[in-house]
């Protein structure tokens, strides 16, 4: 098991003055009847590691997707990495936004039949000449080098040529982390990255995540149902309940009673 969490630097003591993400009165409904998000005001500063927690259906994943324009915002506005939008970001704005963002899903979402290296190179899709990121065969040499380096960060350089579906669940999630980091994004968003893994692999992945974000100065926003992960790997915990922010506290000041309240029926 990797022991990377032990010496994570505390970002709260560093420079985290610039807001990387700001939402104002963010509302989201899918059918105009049920509001998933009911006015979210949130600010995430540069270098922070923020855990978004809440019970199933409280709107965590929806909020993450709204921040990078994967889902349309019904009302309110989002400013992410200097791009402000309501609804969906416009074409060029969306491209700029996603170029600076890495996204890791609960299920690794790799292309199973492609090699590990090709999957990491997919992280270059928003670069000019994106067609060359379709596969490692067509990618320019610097992209191949960057992908191999990203794989070394997750200790999978030796698996570069293997097919993605030949790897274990934990290894596949590490590949998806490498894919998200290959462009060295300013913001990394992870939607329950450890949920589909066993406890040991899940902990390894979270530790790796937090470590890499700290090493590369990347702002991290992740959702989790595991309170131990939130406590260990985040500087701040934002709890959602019923589409609203229940509390927004530093990890150090979050109590067990606060966490109990989040999942109270």
């Amino acid at each position, binding site marked *: 098991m990797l022991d990377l969490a032990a010496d994570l630097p505390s970002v709260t003591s560093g420079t985290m003055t610039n807001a990387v993400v700001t939402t104002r009165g963010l509302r989201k409904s899918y059918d105009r009847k049920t509001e998933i998000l009911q006015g979210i005001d949130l600010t995430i500063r540069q270098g922070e590691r923020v855990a978004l927690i809440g019970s199933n259906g409280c709107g965590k994943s929806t909020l993450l997707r709204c921040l*990078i324009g*994967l889902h349309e915002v019904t009302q309110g506005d989002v400013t992410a990495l200097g791009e402000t939008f309501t609804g969906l970001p416009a074409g060029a704005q*969306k*491209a700029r936004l*996603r*170029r600076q*963002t*890495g*996204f890791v*899903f609960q*299920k690794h*979402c*790799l*292309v*199973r*039949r*492609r090699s590990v290296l090709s999957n990491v190179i*997919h*992280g270059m*899709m*928003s670069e000019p000449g*994106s*067609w060359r*990121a*379709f*596969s490692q065969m067509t990618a320019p040499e610097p992209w191949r080098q960057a992908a191999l380096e990203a794989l070394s960060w997750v200790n999978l350089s030796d698996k570069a040529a293997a097919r993605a579906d030949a790897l274990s669940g934990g290894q596949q999630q590490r590949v*998806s982390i490498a*894919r*998200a980091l290959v462009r060295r994004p300013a913001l990394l968003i992870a939607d329950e990255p450890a949920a589909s893994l066993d406890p040991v692999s899940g902990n390894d992945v979270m530790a790796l995540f937090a470590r890499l974000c700290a090493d590369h100065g990347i702002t991290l926003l992740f959702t989790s149902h595991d309170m131990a992960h939130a406590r260990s790997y985040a500087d701040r915990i934002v709890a959602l309940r019923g589409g609203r922010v229940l509390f927004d506290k530093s990890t150090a000041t979050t109590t067990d009673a606060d966490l109990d309240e989040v999942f109270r029926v």
Partner: protein
Amino acid sequence: MSNPADRMPPRLTRLSPLTFVLTMTAFAIVIVSVGQVAPTPGQLINGGPSMVRLVDRMMPPNLDPAFLSRIFWRIVETFQIAIAGAFIGIVLSLPIAWFAARGVGPFGNLGAFLSKAFISFLRTVPDLVWALLFVATVGLGAVAGTMTIVVDTIGFCGRFFAEAIEDSEKEPQEAIAAIGGNRLSVLFGAILPDVMPSLINTSLFALEKAVRSSVVLGLVGAGGIGQELKAAFDLFQYRNASTIILVIFLIVLGMEWVTDRLRRRVQ
């Protein structure tokens, strides 16, 4: 307290009046059709001796070297028609299927609907009708046959490619979109690698179908070995005809064997 047996659901579902009428109408259509166009036992009994006489005149197949040499080159042409037509058809099917795939294609639902309608049109017109049209436009010969196979292949592959694209795994597509990929990136980065076995499978079926079609296209003048078969029947050269029928049988059998093995490898 009511008896639990009273709540037992019936073995047969009750038919609604509309379903009953539609079912009966369908039965009536089948019975009337069989009565009007299916062969009667008398016709079958009377036709039997004629069939025996025809088979007798076909035996033995003509194995004259000069004839076999002519047939060989016709077989080569038949394969060329099938391979060229299937290849061009498969290549053209890919973008058309992408346009037709709902929720994935670049032109939205209207573009998908129009593309699907176009594919359906190509598929519903029989290949011999397309062959007649192309013989009338580009003249007798292999080119008309190749164009027929192209159209037939688009009608076949277009539909199955589009369905495969629609059914492809959504998570990698979302991941590539989240990374910043456009629709083309999603197509080449996530969809095509995922559906490739299905595309190859369908393409092999299309090739097999193309070989079967190409052997009969000659009946309407669109090149290939079918032209020899028509000439043999027209000139009452039944021994030549039996040789050609045997050759067609071997070609189709061989093609099915090859594509079956290739399909198994792809799985």
